[in-house]
């Protein structure tokens, strides 16, 4: 087997500036796109609840479109195709003293738009899981729709939403590799640039795989904590010992869900 351990350890443990920038971009784009997706998803889910077709038909169109086309196509379409067709071009903009390149804007928006469609369905399911009696109790106490959703329904929906939301972020972390095609130097393109100079494809792709594995695993721990925290009111008065939470049923759920 042709494997150079020196190269492997060097790139794994002493990442270059370019590589660390790529890692930072991967995380930043994931977080921002996920936030955008959650906002869009919540808006879409709430609009979907409306009986008014003017409100819920556009949402259904958006969800159908985003879920019916490949994400890679959406990314290239938003950045390259729209510019080529003279419809819209992403220009670099200045934000808080930093220049945000057009392709990074497009990356975040494309990923966020796509995520919004999936979050809309997840949030809709979460809201649907809340017992109708909760609406009646809130209403009979004189609460309006906004208060009812914000204080009573959404907090309960959130408990149902957290596990699939966690899974979606896991997927988002990995989907950021797709924006390499529009020239964003996230982890994958950074790796490709290094392999083109060193030709050590095996070692470097192993390194990038391990980086992603680390990111997704760290996120998995945080997701576990979120799920436990949000089911607080369901817990019996003494929580189960931490060890069984980490490596017992929770670990099995972790393995199953991925």
């Amino acid at each position: 087997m042709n494997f150079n351990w020196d190269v492997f350890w060097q790139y794994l443990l002493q990442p270059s500036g370019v590589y660390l920038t790529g890692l930072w971009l991967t995380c930043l784009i994931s977080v921002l796109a996920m936030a955008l997706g959650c906002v869009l998803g919540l808006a879409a889910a709430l609009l979907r609840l409306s009986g008014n077709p003017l409100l819920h038909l556009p949402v259904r169109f958006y969800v159908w479109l985003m879920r019916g086309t490949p994400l890679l196509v959406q990314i290239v379409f938003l950045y390259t195709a729209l510019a080529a067709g003279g419809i819209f071009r992403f220009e670099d903009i200045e934000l808080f003293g930093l220049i945000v390149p057009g392709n990074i804007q497009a990356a975040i928006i494309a990923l966020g738009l796509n995520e919004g469609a999936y979050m809309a369905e997840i949030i809709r399911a979460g809201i649907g899981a809340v017992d109708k009696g909760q609406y009646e109790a809130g209403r009979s106490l004189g609460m309006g729709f906004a208060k009812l959703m914000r204080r009573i329904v959404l907090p309960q929906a959130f408990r149902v939403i957290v596990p699939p939301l966690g899974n979606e972020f896991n997927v988002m972390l990995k989907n950021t590799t797709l924006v390499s095609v529009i020239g964003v130097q996230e982890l994958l393109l950074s790796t490709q640039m290094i392999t083109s100079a060193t030709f050590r494809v095996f070692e470097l792709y192993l390194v990038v795989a391990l980086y992603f594995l680390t990111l997704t695993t760290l996120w998995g721990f945080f997701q576990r904590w979120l799920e436990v925290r949000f089911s607080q009111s369901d817990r019996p008065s003494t929580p189960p010992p931490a060890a069984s939470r980490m490596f017992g049923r929770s670990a099995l759920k972790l393995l199953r869900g991925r």
Partner: protein
Amino acid sequence: MHKHRALLVAVSLGLCTQWAVAAPQVLERLRNVDKLTYCSGMDSPPLVSFDESQKPRGLTVDLGLEIAKRLGDKQVQWKVIPFSGLVPALLAQQCDMIVDQLFDKPERRQVIDIVNYMYSSQAVVVPKGNPKGIKTLDDLSAHKVAVLNGSTIKTLLDTQNDSLTKAGKPPMKLVVYNTDTDAFQALRISQVDAYGTTVETAGYYAAMAPDLFQEGVPAFSRILTGLGIRKDDPQLTAAVQQVISDMRTDGSYVQLLNKWHVSSDTLD
């Protein structure tokens, strides 16, 4: 009588030359194979690219096909791989030869053998009218330049960035793409200010749309260009080298370069 003998000698010599040229065919390496696999990015017109019907065309394509013919009428199978993956693919024995615009550089020679077939140079393409006034590499400071991943021009522009930074000028922003077509596209739709590529490709695009593009920075960094072959395949290297020498002798080499309008790139 002398004339007849002279003629006989000339004919015999001619036959011998033919036989000498045919020698590579007898090599072990090629005796039992009926096809050669070529890797290419198909991304660098006029040397290697696809025509409208998705067939390979270009100077290096013609060269590759001629080599296969002269090595015993071997079939050619093309594998299209993004440029930066060509050397790894060759090393992984996914092909016999890299048939592309591969520059002869020491770091590449460390891992593969290269049989040169022409010279190339670099150039920087800009929109018609050169709106940002880019005439030298220094003028690229603070601008966005599209380049192909793994290309020599990218390395050269990285070096240029180092000297710009040392001189206290803002560096250029290199936007890296995995295909040269995507890099050119970025210039086409004004997502970048300039596009760094080979002078041959630059000339090709400028000729294709003269009212849209022009040369910004003229040809620089003249460099040998070759075909890539694995180091553990010396027989193939020798055979290909021989074919190219023969083509230079019998005039077909010059004809090929003229056909594709790159005669200035002839090997010395």
